[in-house]
């Protein structure tokens, strides 16, 4: 429950200041606010809450009413547990990779002049506005046997490398698409660090390494935790990239859900899989809220 409360607190802090009194007549204020929320709440109720409840119900639905057989099946069959482990493995690898790439990048963004930062930020964000499908296909073109990467490699006299439909290609594609989340989270935390602290550390005799270890690292820890959880949560539910760029052994939870729905029409088992994925995601969010607070998800300090 503390997770919920924290999530609520975090969102409450986002609220814009109340409207002037004369716009919202005293006493009718709560009612007006509720009315303003009706379109959004209505939409979510019909297209999110209802299907979600339906999925959860189906996952417990058997021939004789309530059953746990779908969940039982998941944990009995090693194939499904293995897919879950692969999902964790890929998501974990992607999280580490984005962190390694994003940390120095975010540091540069937070350090350079405002103009340079804006240009670099645009370079990070513009691909973000393109459809994920387009970007994934672009990677397939680049990494394919006749693609740009292998042509360059061949031109340099090396043998072509298999970079499609295997683990490296999934990691490349997912790291690429999830990088902005990590960069933005780290950047917002780094921008909040007082530059005087770094100067003070240097003036007190600290080496570059010690400035990083004693000052930067502890102060960016909320960003590291937050960014990592965010990327992990998003990665766990990934579908398109592993589906298009991965081999048979790189398929994640979302793929087998799709398989159950599309080909086997086993809606109940698919629902159980979805519920398991949802639980993992919620646990991730819970950790996020507990460790950093949901506020940082939406907040960007300038």
């Amino acid at each position, binding site marked *: 429950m503390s997770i919920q409360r924290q999530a609520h607190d975090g969102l409450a802090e986002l609220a814009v200041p109340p409207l002037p009194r004369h716009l919202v007549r005293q006493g009718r204020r709560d009612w007006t606010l509720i009315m303003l929320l009706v379109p959004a709440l209505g939409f979510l109720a019909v297209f999110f809450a209802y299907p979600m409840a339906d999925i959860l119900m189906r996952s417990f639905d058997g021939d004789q009413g309530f059953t746990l057989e779908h969940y039982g099946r998941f944990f009995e069959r090693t194939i499904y547990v293995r897919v879950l482990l692969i999902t964790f493995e890929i998501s974990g690898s992607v999280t580490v990779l984005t962190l390694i790439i994003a940390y120095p990048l975010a540091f540069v963004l937070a350090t350079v002049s405002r103009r340079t930062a804006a240009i670099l930020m645009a370079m990070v964000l513009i691909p973000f506005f393109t459809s994920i499908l387009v970007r994934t296909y672009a990677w397939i073109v680049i990494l394919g046997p006749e693609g740009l990467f292998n042509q360059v490699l061949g031109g340099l006299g090396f043998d072509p490398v298999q970079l499609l439909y295997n683990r490296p290609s999934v990691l490349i594609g997912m790291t690429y698409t999830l990088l902005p989340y990590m960069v933005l989270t780290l950047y917002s935390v780094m921008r909040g660090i*007082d530059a005087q602290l770094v*100067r003070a550390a*240097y003036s*007190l*005799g600290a080496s570059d390494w010690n400035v990083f270890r*004693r000052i930067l690292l502890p102060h960016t820890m909320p960003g590291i935790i937050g960014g990592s959880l965010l990327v992990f949560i998003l990665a766990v539910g990934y579908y398109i990239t592993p589906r298009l760029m991965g081999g048979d052994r790189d398929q994640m939870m979302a793929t087998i859900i799709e398989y159950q729905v599309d080909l086997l029409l086993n809606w109940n088992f698919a629902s159980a899989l979805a519920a398991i994925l949802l639980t993992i995601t919620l646990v991730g969010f819970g950790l996020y809220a507990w460790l950093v607070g949901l506020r940082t998800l939406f907040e960007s300090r300038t």
Partner: protein
Amino acid sequence: MARTSIEEIAAPPTTPAPPRPAGGGAAIRLSDLWKTYGDTIAVAGCDLSIAAGEFCTLLGPSGSGKTTTLMMMAGFAQPDRGEIFVDERPITKLPPQKRDLGVVFQNYALFPLMTVFENVAFPLQMRHSTRAEVRERVARVLEIVELTGLEARYPGQLSGGQQQRVALARAIVFEPRVLLMDEPLGALDKKLRSALQLEIKHLQQRLNVTVVYVTHDQEEALTMSDQIVVMRDGKIEQAGTPEQVYDEPWTVFVANFVGESNLLEGTITEIDEHEVVIEHPAGRLFRALRRGDARNGDQVRAAVHLERLALTNGEVPTDGNSWPGRVREVTFLGDAVKYAVVVGETRPSLAQTLVVKENRRDAAQRFTAGDTVTVTWAPEYTKILASESSG
């Protein structure tokens, strides 16, 4: 005035002998130092010598280049031209962490995730001191700044004054020979400021460390310094002891920035051994202290501090300067009263206002607006200023 009264108040140091750097403070020399940011010239050719163990204050309004000069000493800004010497050793090529200078920042820059102990221990750990040594030296320095018992607190749990002391302790614990301070008391209220001014001054004397102190507060500069360097537009306007800068301002800027002055214009009509006679455009003659380069017929400006003027409605002494006028405004200051007196009203276009600051010796206010009075002042306190070619 301020200095003598402070020395009277100052209690003798009671804290134990502080860590004393082996060689005492270091001498600093700036040679033709320049720094530009884009089109703005922040520091324009500063030459300055600071003696070992001296308390030197860089005084000036914001944008005068004082903080940039300090940051170049600390190594956070690289001069475009010129060199900084510490004991005649050039340091501009050294990174900040190799300069071994203590720096106290404007907003303290305490590490918020570290306790008081960890903050103060930081520079010692960076110098690979042993654990026992760190404990002992941190304890000793916290005793000096009177923070014993607060070791486990975090900066956020301390008052502004306490944070200031931690910053000070952290900057002196590794016994640097030079301490650079950037408006360290700027964020504190007036009472606390005066108390900490004295503490910092005492500490500097006991540690025998060279201090370069940046402030825009002339009172603070006068209270603490051995040398005051008045800066304006990136240049050094005047450098000297507090008495010199206050009593013998060279320029209009210094006369008005350090203390408050009345400015009198006129033409030199007579020169004798010690004094000159100046004729004000309104026709009044007054005498001023002679300057070496004064010549007959020169257009000059002279400055007289407000408190050097006096008001009388009785007999006017014949040996000094005097000018009759009318009180226009009276401002009550608590310990003193300021009178704005209009003089030379016979020719209104040339009339001038002289401001007189009179200490209140008795409860009664002596004059009110509209009173006819005579302003008197001594020629020796009337200083001719250098003619300003620029600005």
